[in-house]
């Protein structure tokens, strides 16, 4: 029983951590309709920045914030490449993803893995110290859920502000943004900054939990985030009372659960990324089928 609870806890912890990234990617992929590949580079960016800061003795909560800002800056670069230099969205993402590799190596001082054991992280200092006894094993889950929910609520709030409404219009009908006297390109840049900021934040949280940063930790993040977004929004497609941001976090947890179940059933670790791709493909195809059915129903009405 303990093993099962442990597994569930593990799924939830990782689900929430990657959920932070998924709500960010929801903004770029679903709201703005931009498939942003730079998250593969900004996720480890968040981790590496955090490692460097924590080793330097910076407060771990500040490290989260700085990681977010660094990710947002990288997102701005993707946006500028795409919007101002008119490079396609996919290529802009790839360019930033590749360049992050070097940036991350510079930040870590050339090593692929940076450890910071026994340093203060959000999981062992500050409010984490309040969790004693039986609660101790749950502290990671409680903290990651807290960060994830706060990010989600802030994004929900943002999407209802003037800027947020304009961002939603930029994805839905750029011509409308133009008629309001605004440049939809600027809104795309803001969206990419938010998306990559959240991704770097997720990277920072993961690094603090593992007490180490790995510059290779970004591989497959695009796939994971997009799968979470698509699974989440499809499952809750009919449920209007569930906010899309909430749905996306559930999507992330569910996706992680699928991976853990497969591992528990004896799938060798080497096949993990392949499995990730397969689940993503299934999610994409179902998404397409559901979309087509919706369209057909729409016509018959």
């Amino acid at each position, binding site marked *: 029983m303990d093993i099962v609870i442990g597994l569930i806890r593990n799924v939830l912890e990782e689900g929430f951590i990657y959920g932070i990234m998924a709500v960010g990617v929801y903004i770029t992929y679903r709201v703005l309709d931009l498939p942003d590949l730079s998250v593969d580079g900004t996720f480890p960016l968040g981790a590496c920045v955090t490692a460097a800061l924590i080793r330097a003795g910076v407060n771990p909560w500040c490290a989260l914030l700085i990681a977010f800002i660094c990710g947002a800056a990288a997102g701005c670069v993707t946006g500028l490449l795409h919007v101002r230099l008119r490079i396609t969205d996919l290529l802009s993402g790839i360019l930033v993803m590749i360049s992050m590799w070097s940036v991350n190596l510079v930040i870590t001082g050339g090593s692929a893995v940076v450890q910071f054991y026994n340093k203060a992280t959000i999981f062992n200092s500050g409010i984490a110290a309040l969790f004693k006894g039986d609660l101790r094993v749950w502290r990671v889950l409680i903290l990651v859920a807290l960060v994830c929910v706060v990010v989600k609520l802030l994004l929900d709030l943002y999407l209802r502000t003037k800027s947020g*409404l304009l961002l939603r219009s930029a994805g*839905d009908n750029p*011509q*409308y943004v133009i008629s309001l006297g605004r440049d939809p390109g600027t809104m795309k840049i803001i969206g990419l900054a938010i998306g990559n900021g959240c991704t770097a934040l997720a990277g920072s949280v993961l690094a603090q939990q593992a007490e180490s940063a790995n510059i290779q930790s970004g591989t497959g993040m695009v796939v994971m985030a997009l799968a979470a977004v698509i699974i989440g929004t499809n499952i809750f497609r009919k449920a209007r009372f569930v906010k899309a941001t909430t749905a996306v976090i559930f999507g992330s947890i569910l996706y992680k659960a699928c991976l853990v179940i497969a591992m528990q059933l004896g799938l060798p670790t080497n096949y993990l990324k392949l499995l990730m791709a397969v689940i993503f493909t299934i999610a994409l195809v179902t998404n397409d089928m559901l979309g087509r059915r919706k369209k057909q129903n729409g016509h018959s009405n």
Partner: protein
Amino acid sequence: MATQINCDTGFVGLRHIKKTFNPGSVNEVVLFTDFNLEIPKNQFVAVVGSNGSGKTTMLNLLCGSVPADSGEITIGGRDIMRLKEHQRSKFIGRVFQDPSKGTCPELTILENMALADNKGLSYGLSRGVNKKRVDYYRSRLELLRLGLEDKIHLPVASLSGGQRQALALLICTMTPLDLLILDEHTAALDPRSSETVMELTDRLVKEKNLTTLMVTHNLKYAIGYGDRLIMLHRGGIVLDVSGENKSALHTKDLTDKFNEISIEDGN
């Protein structure tokens, strides 16, 4: 009805406009070689013309969605040639043929109106919908007589084409405009919605005293509405009537003119 170019001091002015599409290629199309149009303030101009006559290009040049090769475009005395499309939108309002272009379908009616109400101000982190303005939005929606005032929390995507176009028109004219551009804005609607939208257009233009440029294929509307009528053909103005001459105009006069042009073309 001689071909003439109205040279009143123009509030809106297109002068010596040159525009060639795909220059230097086999698909080269020379549309405007020396196009001139002056529109005085508060005038409502209807524009007719066959396909390819340059109507839509003229609107695109004004809005900035297509750049002119050379010439001068002024609105209210300022040169707007170098302004980008979204910068020109601050004082030019445009309603498109496609009703879905003038609003954001995913947002509610209320959110759409709140966004439009804020045009010209900054779009920052304050609450998107100002609760104090909701009653005002409702009163504006009542003008449409479509019952939309009771549906303000519905996404615009759930409205019909006619409702959307009426809303787009209302939204477009919420903030002060120097020029209202109507780009075949009733063409995609059924006859009844089309009448409703056209009536609404007339009411709004009169209420706000808007300088208006309306492109239409509907000759009845071109004759029935507006102070001046222009017919374009191959990038030139072939008919320009206003005042009493326009009131005396019949649909048949226009169809005759169209036929005359086609004969010249050898069709």
